[in-house]
């Protein structure tokens, strides 16, 4: 039987390496496909509530009071503004509009998800308030605008 020389062995070995390298390079590949969906959350309106009524008013007085605004959403919000307010008529006969509050723009602070924050407003009692306005509690409808702030 004929012997393989050293040089032949080297050539055979090199060829073997080439074969192995070729097999290793031929990776099996595949693709995947499918479909799904995601949904966006809905938005819930915040509520403005009375926090403190402040010190008692008298004709011509300007006093501060605070309101609390909550955030029932799953995301933080920021208050962009709080509208001006004007009191409704009281049960004691004090005329509507006797007490007013100025609008506030960008009062700041982010309200965390499911949190609340307190804002200070200024109330002014009309100088022409009548005696019917003594010892009354005034309700001022207010509206706040908010936006997401995540």
């Amino acid at each position: 039987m004929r012997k393989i020389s050293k040089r032949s062995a080297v050539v055979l070995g090199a060829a073997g390496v080439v074969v192995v390298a070729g097999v290793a390079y031929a990776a099996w590949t595949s693709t995947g496909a499918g479909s799904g969906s995601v949904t966006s959350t809905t938005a819930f309106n915040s509520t403005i509530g009375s926090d403190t009524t402040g010190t008692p008013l008298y004709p011509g007085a300007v006093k501060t009071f605070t309101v609390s605004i909550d955030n029932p959403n799953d995301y933080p919000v920021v208050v962009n503004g709080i509208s001006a307010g004007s009191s409704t008529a009281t049960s004691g006969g004090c005329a509507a509009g006797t007490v007013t509050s100025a609008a506030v723009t960008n009062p700041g602070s982010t309200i965390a998800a499911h949190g609340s924050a307190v804002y200070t407003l200024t109330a002014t009692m009309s100088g022409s308030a009548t005696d019917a306005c003594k010892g009354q509690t005034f309700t001022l409808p207010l509206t706040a605008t908010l936006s997401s702030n995540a």
Partner: protein
Amino acid sequence: MSRWRFALPAGALVVCTWLVVGPSAPAPAANGNGIKQFAITDVPGRATALVPGATGTRWIRLGNAENFPILVQTVTTTVGRPVDGGGRPVPACPASSVRVDALAAPVTVAGNGTADVALTTHLLAGAPDACRGLTFPLTYTGTAVKP
């Protein structure tokens, strides 16, 4: 002379090498063109609602129909036009309001098995109000190799 003796066998070996390597390049898979396509589906009940400016997760399930493991290397997602609860398109909310990140790292899926992975979702902070309470269709594509 001796040079020719060695050169001829070497040339023959090279030809043989190509014959061996050549046919192995197309993978001998079931569909004749690679591993069977793997499935990508949503994992029921495992999605967080999209919130403006925040990230959430969309869990997906990778399904391997082969009887050997595969390594899923990429999964990318295309977001389609959103629809409301009645299935009606909402043009005021662009599909670009939502983004889904690509698969963060390769995942091995066992033969005839599944693997659940989470993709990160985003709803842009400046998404319009029209984007509230909508469903965004997703189309997944991915690539895998036999490890």
